């Protein structure tokens, strides 16, 4: 009898271990997570930015043609301002070995694109890459937002990535 009771207890304990992850999975599926962009890697401060945070930062506009050739006006924050907030080695610090540093942009669908820091810094280029959260006065939707990288002046918009989720700073080495 005691033996059966012990088995019963063991079964309850085992089931609890099965039920808890199941419950957590369902809870996660129901409780939707707010989209955000994290900034990490070789930074002084890790950041997690949502739409509200971007609205508090310096705002600029940039124009980008879609693949059909139609021009759209995007609004957002210069990527260098975001990187400055994280303490990335830009501007006067962008020399010597810091010139081998890169920005890796990760997107919600797994897509990734890369820039050298010098491609983004205003002492090297007049091109202003922005992290946009508005297009033609509206939120960016249809699987392209809520955060899209906008890289003006490129012949193919392949680095103007949709659904940006992370900005990662690293050092290239061989």
């Amino acid at each position, binding site marked *: 009898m005691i033996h059966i009771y012990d088995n019963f207890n063991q079964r309850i304990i085992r089931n609890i271990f*099965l039920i808890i992850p199941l419950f957590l*999975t369902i809870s*996660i*599926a129901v*409780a*939707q*997570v707010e*989209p955000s962009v994290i900034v990490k890697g070789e930074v002084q401060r890790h950041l997690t930015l949502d739409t509200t945070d971007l609205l508090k930062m310096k705002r600029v506009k940039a124009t980008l043609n879609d*693949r*059909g050739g139609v021009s759209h006006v995007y609004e957002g924050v210069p990527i260098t301002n975001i990187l400055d907030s994280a303490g990335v080695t830009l501007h006067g610090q962008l020399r010597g070995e810091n010139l081998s540093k890169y920005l890796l942009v990760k997107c*919600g*669908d*797994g*897509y990734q694109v890369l820039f050298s820091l010098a491609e983004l810094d205003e002492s090297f280029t007049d091109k202003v890459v922005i992290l946009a959260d508005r297009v033609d006065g509206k939120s960016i939707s*249809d*699987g*392209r937002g809520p955060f899209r990288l906008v890289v003006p002046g490129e012949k193919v918009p392949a680095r103007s990535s*949709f*659904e940006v989720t992370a900005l990662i700073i690293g050092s290239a080495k061989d």
Partner: protein
Amino acid sequence: MSKTKKIQGGKVYVFATLIIFLLLMQSAFHNVEPPNEPVKLNYPAYFGNRTYENPKNPLTKQGIALGKMLFYEKALSANGNISCGSCHQQDRAFTDGKRFSEGTNGKLTSRNAMALVNLLWVDNFFWDGRSKGLENQSLVPLTDPHEMGQQLDVSARKLQSLTKYPPRFKEAFGTDKITGAYITYALAQFERTLISADSKYDQYLQGKYQPAASELRGIDLFFGNDKEQEPLMRRRTCGHCHGGPKTFSELFHNNGLDSSSQDLGRAIFTGLAADNGRFRVVTLRNIALTAPYMHDGRFKTLEEVIDHYSDHIRESATLSPFLREAMENSNKIGFQFTRQEKEDIVNFLHLLTDSSFVNNPAFSDPFK
């Protein structure tokens, strides 16, 4: 006389020292671990080097050999009736030909068994990418009640009691004390070696095979090798997501199977609404061997798959923007392939079958 004695005494002393030295050397060599031989994987340069290895689990000949045994070891399942190899059969490019697989308890899995091909280039595993790294991936099938259903500590104890395993763990990891972590490490080592790079398409890329006209048209259609003059939707081709000669880059998309997904896919793991109905874009290497297709195995043939992308894509809030873009530019649903184009693409997909991969004894069941 005393001088002779001295010399003889000296000889004895030297001889004894030599014997002691040899005994010590023998003892020292006896205690040396067997050499753990590192393994470097070979693959074509056109696969690229964006590979995922674990510096804490370097590949060795002994680790890979142990991993292969464990892959086919039924003692790792709760009822001793299935191994990894039961649902991942080599002749089917490590799938099982079923919509859903039967676990150790006779219950079915909720998603289709994925092909184990070129995993060296995968970082986030499963249809929804929930497990980072092969060492973490194997935890799920090993312990899921509807798969192998056995906790790792139980598996470790079972293997410890089988005389064949402790010495092999000692060879692979320097200890005969078997742990769950070492089980996952050995499995990961074996699975990283499952490289398929000798299909007819590879032979074509290496200048050793001349594809037929239909196969060449299929290659052009698949990768969008044409033509600025072609309509825009045609330039958004299969290769946009199934990219490059590997026919794989790690992406997750809603490919328009349903307007409202029963299985929320990646959203279950991330909690993001944007991930509803989003699943892995799979490698197409050996795809002709891995029917049925999609996360729920709904399509029985490659022809059905091509028909889906051509004519039956369903609109939804999270439909891949690349598929939607193609539709926006044509005002029609899907890629609208002609009958000939469908046939050409299927003929190309058959070029990706690698018979040397599915017959390679290095990957086959060592218990048969």
